């Protein structure tokens, strides 16, 4: 096979692959700025930041964020503790049992999250009844159950991370500490823990992220305390609007920023360690071959931060100087005109029909207006098209999005939709 053809082929494949991977995110980010009621990029109506504003006013979202943090914190503590204990145990367990033990602690990763959620629910409900406690007890508290359910498998991940570090630990150090007079607790605190600290930090971050984004298990256990992920899922299933895109964009930016920050911190640490030992380290090696201006080399997080600040300033600047209200008003005026024109056309049609059949056989309902496209799901309930002539129909809110929950709706047409037109599953 021709080498250069192969090379080109590889690049094309990679390009398509990364487009598949990153494309959706890019597009979603763009929709956050489109004033259209349903997230889309075409047709582009007006540039607006209103969706971000609405995002911050959404009570449920904010509540969800709070719960996510609380549950995340709880899960981190429990998972890291269990993971560390299990990792220490793994190194000490008698070899005959080791394979079984390992299988048991790795199993939660393979068990479907749904199953974990259900089993947690069923089991603790049973204990609850067994102890005679009512439905308000701590054991049926959504936060408790979610932390327990998530920790079951997140501890496995933590354990893997910790074991990797633990294997490089020299048990002689613990013995030396003991020999010099330390109690077991002191030896643990002063010798083992400092050694494990980087791994513990990694495990904690891992645990928090895994807990934050968990859905399959949490969806059964959350009780009265929905997490942000749960709220998001509800919104996505029942009420899509671009405030979700806005949230997504924020999360993407935060993620990218922290990823770069984490990367930069690791590299700086590596450089410092190398410098301490006097080994010559080329910036080129450490920067992974990315060529950046001197000042910023080795620190893409700084680059990211700079870009981000520029972006924020631009955004805020344009936001204050530019108001989308005029644009939106114009767009709505256009839509209204288009709607009126269509009504006119229909009236004319009806006139012509009436002229041809005096019986008035037809009923207005028989007319199927082109009230815009619809998603396949809404075929199931025709109620969305019940109000044929209501101009509100013609705003084109297909796929059943509800009108925005607050005053950001500048169309003035109000909530015309029956909740049953929601995109189904």
């Amino acid at each position, binding site marked *: 096979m021709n080498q250069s053809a192969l090379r080109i082929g590889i690049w094309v494949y990679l390009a398509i692959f990364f487009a598949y991977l990153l494309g959706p995110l890019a597009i979603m980010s763009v929709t956050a700025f489109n004033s259209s009621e349903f997230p889309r990029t075409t047709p582009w109506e007006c540039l607006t930041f209103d969706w971000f504003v609405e995002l911050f006013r959404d009570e449920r979202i904010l509540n969800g964020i709070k719960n996510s943090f609380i549950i995340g914190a709880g899960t981190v503590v429990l998972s890291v503790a269990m993971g560390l204990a299990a990792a220490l145990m793994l190194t000490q367990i008698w070899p005959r049992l080791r394979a079984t033990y390992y299988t048991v602690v790795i199993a939660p990763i393979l068990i479907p999250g749904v199953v974990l959620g259900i089993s947690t629910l069923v089991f603790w409900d049973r204990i609850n009844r067994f102890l005679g406690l009512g439905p308000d007890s701590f054991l049926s508290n959504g936060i408790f159950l979610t932390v327990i359910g998530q920790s079951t498998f997140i501890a496995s991940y933590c354990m893997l991370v910790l074991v990797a570090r633990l294997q490089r630990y020299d048990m002689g150090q613990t013995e*030396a500490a*003991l*020999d*010099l007079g330390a*109690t077991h607790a002191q030896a643990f605190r002063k010798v083992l823990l400092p*050694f494990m600290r980087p791994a513990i930090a990694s495990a904690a971050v891992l645990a928090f992220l895994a807990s934050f984004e968990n859905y399959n298990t949490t969806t059964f256990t959350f009780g009265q305390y929905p997490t942000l992920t749960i709220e998001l899922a509800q919104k996505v299933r029942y009420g899509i609007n671009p405030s979700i895109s806005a949230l997504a964009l924020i999360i993407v930016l935060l993620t990218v920023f922290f990823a770069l920050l984490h990367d930069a911190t690791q590299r700086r640490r590596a450089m410092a360690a190398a410098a301490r030992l006097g080994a010559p380290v080329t910036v080129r090696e450490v920067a992974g071959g990315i060529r950046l201006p001197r000042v910023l080399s080795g620190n893409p997080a700084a680059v990211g931060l700079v870009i981000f600040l520029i972006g924020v300033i631009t955004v805020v600047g344009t936001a204050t100087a530019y108001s989308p209200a005029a644009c939106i008003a114009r767009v709505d005026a256009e839509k209204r005109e288009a709607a009126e024109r269509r009504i006119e056309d229909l009236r004319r049609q009806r006139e012509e029909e009436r002229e041809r059949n005096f019986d008035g056989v037809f009923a207005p309902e028989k007319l199927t207006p082109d009230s815009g496209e619809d998603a396949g799901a809404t075929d199931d309930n025709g109620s969305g098209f019940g109000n044929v002539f209501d101009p509100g129909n013609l705003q084109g809110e297909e796929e059943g999005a509800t009108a925005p929950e607050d005053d950001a709706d500048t169309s003035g047409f109000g909530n015309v939709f029956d909740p049953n037109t929601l995109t189904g599953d």
Partner: protein
Amino acid sequence: MMSAGVGVDLEDLWIRFGDFVAVRDANVDIRGGDFFSFLGPSGCGKTTILRAVSGFLEPSDGRVLIGGRDMKGIGPNKRPTALIFQNLALFPLMKVWENIAFALEIRGASAGERRKRADELLEMVALTGQGDKLPAELSGGQKQRVAIARALCAEPDVLLLDEPLSALDLKLRQHMRTELREIQQRVGITFIYITHDQGEALTMSDRIAVMRAGVIDQIGNGREIYNEPATAFAASFVGENNVFRGTVKEVRGAEAVIDTNRSGTLLATVSPANRDKMKPGDKAMLFIRPEAFSIAETGTSGDHFVTARVTNEEFEGNVFNIFMEGEGGKELKVSLPNLGQSFESHLGAPMTLAYDVQNAVIVPHGDLATE
């Protein structure tokens, strides 16, 4: 002020791991203030004994007494011992001075006190000014000394050292031998040292225990071990030795006559440990050191003469080594001191060697050291 003169006693000590016997009926009396070595090949159980003394291992039978107190059930952190590990086990994330002052940190001393004490100890081990470095930045010998300082900071009654010099190169090893001995004498506490290097054991120790496969063959000072080995193993492990196998023909008090397999009848001294235990008819081994031979007139025969043919000659600087082959293929090595005399080569020719009966030792038949 560190206490000097705390002794360690092992009484009827047995240590088993499942079916495997690591230490068999050890009885050792270590005097306070001594530099005591356990000498033996790898796997002979010396590390096991060390771990039993330091508290990481409970004996299966018998007792460990330190300063007369039974140490049963007392954990390593409560025993008056400090262990220097073979790989040193310095704390990599702590600075040198923090490593050294660790024992004080455990007891809750203030940072100022700890730093002061660490500096004192650094001076004692000749590492002044290195306190702020990390262990990774030190050389092998320096790390060794930090380990010693750290152990001394705990003010132990007994210092245990697990083959501390084995990882160092030759020159450093020899230098450290002298240093360790000096430190011990200066500080005055009991040192228990384990090694497989008999040179170290002989030069540094007040007394030595020779060990093999869990059994202690002999305890004594360097000269006793070297000149009067109690077993074939001790005789062959420590220093070089020529061995003659045979049967006891006659016992005359402290001396005995052996019918050797290939070198005729020879007279020698029974080592003190075996006197009154050997009888005619016992299988025995006769050991004569290479330096114990002198050249006699060729052809002389008698109960302290051996004749053989020279196969190889070597000049090693301080000695002349002569390799010989006797009847039936018996191999011999003779070392003559280089006193500036002219050396005549007898390569290929027969030569008769004489030895002083005091320098020839008879022990019961046993396993030789396989090095």
